[in-house]
């Protein structure tokens, strides 16, 4: 097919689909419903393709059957034990059978067991750097308020020392960690006014962080929209349709 025609068809279909999905912003309508079902259908179909092509073939079948390279050289042997996963996986399908539904717990249990084991194994590895960063020094080692501007000569010296302003910042950080942790104590009734205040401030401190996350997400989300607008108005309309 002519590449020009092909790319016009492809882009036009993409633009129509994009408008179809955008139409839901006004209200749910038949146009949206059509494209939603196309979307779900294509996604479902692709799932079936990717299932074999991207997961089962490379990480299961090829290991089980091994390989003989076409160009000669050493292949990999087939590890036949992998075949056992097929019947175990099939047990999951018993969920549709009321009488034997319990069998689906075997593959599920294996998945959850692996997850749980990894959780125990990785707990320290995941959280210890965070523990470490929660323990800054809160006593200054230099009694100047501000850290002076960095120059190549004083760089390492600056990094080692803690200045008053930095110590204050660290103290704020530590208070934040402890206040937020206290917010997540569930089983102890906090009766003192002070502790109630701490818990409450923990929640407020969290809101600062959440606001900041909201703010920093904005750039990316808007850029994605702008990219779509560029796709519709520049790539499709201006470049393809009007031929600029």
């Amino acid at each position: 097919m002519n590449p020009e025609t092909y790319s016009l068809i492809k882009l036009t279909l993409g633009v129509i689909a994009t408008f179809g999905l955008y139409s839901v912003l006004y209200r749910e309508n038949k146009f949206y419903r059509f494209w939603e079902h196309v979307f779900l259908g294509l996604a479902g179909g692709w799932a079936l393709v990717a299932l074999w092509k991207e997961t089962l073939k490379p990480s299961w079948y090829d290991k089980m059957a091994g390989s003989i390279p076409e160009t000669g050289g050493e292949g990999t042997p087939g590890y036949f034990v992998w075949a056992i996963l097929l019947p175990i996986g099939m047990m999951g399908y018993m969920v549709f059978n009321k009488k034997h539904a319990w069998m689906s717990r075997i593959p599920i249990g294996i998945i959850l067991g692996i997850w749980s084991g990894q959780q125990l194994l990785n707990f320290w590895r995941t959280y210890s750097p965070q523990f470490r960063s929660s323990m800054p020094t809160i006593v200054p080692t230099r009694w100047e308020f501000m850290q002076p501007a960095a120059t190549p000569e004083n760089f390492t010296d600056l990094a080692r020392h803690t200045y008053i302003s930095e110590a204050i910042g660290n103290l704020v950080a530590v208070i934040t960690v402890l206040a937020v942790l206290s917010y997540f104590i569930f089983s102890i009734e906090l009766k003192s006014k002070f502790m109630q205040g701490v818990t409450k401030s923990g929640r407020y401190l969290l809101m600062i962080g959440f606001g900041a996350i909201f703010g920093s997400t904005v750039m990316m989300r808007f850029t994605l929209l702008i990219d779509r607008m560029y796709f519709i108005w520049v790539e499709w309309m201006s470049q393809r349709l009007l031929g600029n």
Partner: protein
Amino acid sequence: MQYFDTGKYQVLFVLVMVAFILINIFRAQNKDIFIRRIAGLNAIEDAVGRATEMGKPVLMVPGLGALNAISVQALNIFAHITRTAARFASPIRLCCGEAAVFAVAQEVIRDVYQSEGVPERMDGDSVRFVSDRQFAFAAGVSGIMLREQTAATFFMGEFFAESLIFAETANSIGAIQVASSTENTQTPFFIAACDYVLIGEEFYAASAYLTRKPVLVGSLVGQDWGKMLIASLVVLGIAMESSQRKGWIEQMENDPAAKTSMMRLFSPEPPDPATKPVRQKHPEEGEAQ
């Protein structure tokens, strides 16, 4: 490789946490334990009740995450919600984006209806697999919400960018929303758009709060002990770091490899290559590598 030197304390620390949890699970068998109020959870009954009044379905989404503790926990909460819905006879929609979660959901929800004695109320629409692709899932669930005008929606589990699509769509149809995400990056969007939000560990505390089962309540107490252990570690660490820092900087002048106690604890020395045991090699493979 970190089993020598301070590496041992790492294993010890996690073992202590594990012990806290297990001890409290056994301790809690015959005790009534206080749990603080969690706002979003009290709203569940009201939300389901309102859906019943309006004759509209209750929607639940366990997130897009793989089958792990988070999605299982979400399904635990949904089992409770479904029980309430089954009593009120409101229809439910549970939309999954991960087939393994769908399999568990299917079984859990069927059990709930059976134990309530109304197995006929669960139909093919109740528990659905929508799509395993993030945004196809988002489009599909939005469509279901808008077409069926769900009156109460529950988003609990691992949510990513799609969180705001769900929350705003549900908001536009005036549904009561209770949400929670263990992904910190999504919580702000739920806070901005939903009526009630469970933050962080409140999500894990939810099933203990709702069911008051001794195992769960005990485990929650154990978690609290664990957090207090972390808090004390932090306080101790700050005290030691602050007291040693000045000395460490002076020491660095002579020995650039000097470390404070906390540095040593958190980055133990790799084992000395000299202590490596002598091993024989497999005859043929030693070469081939």
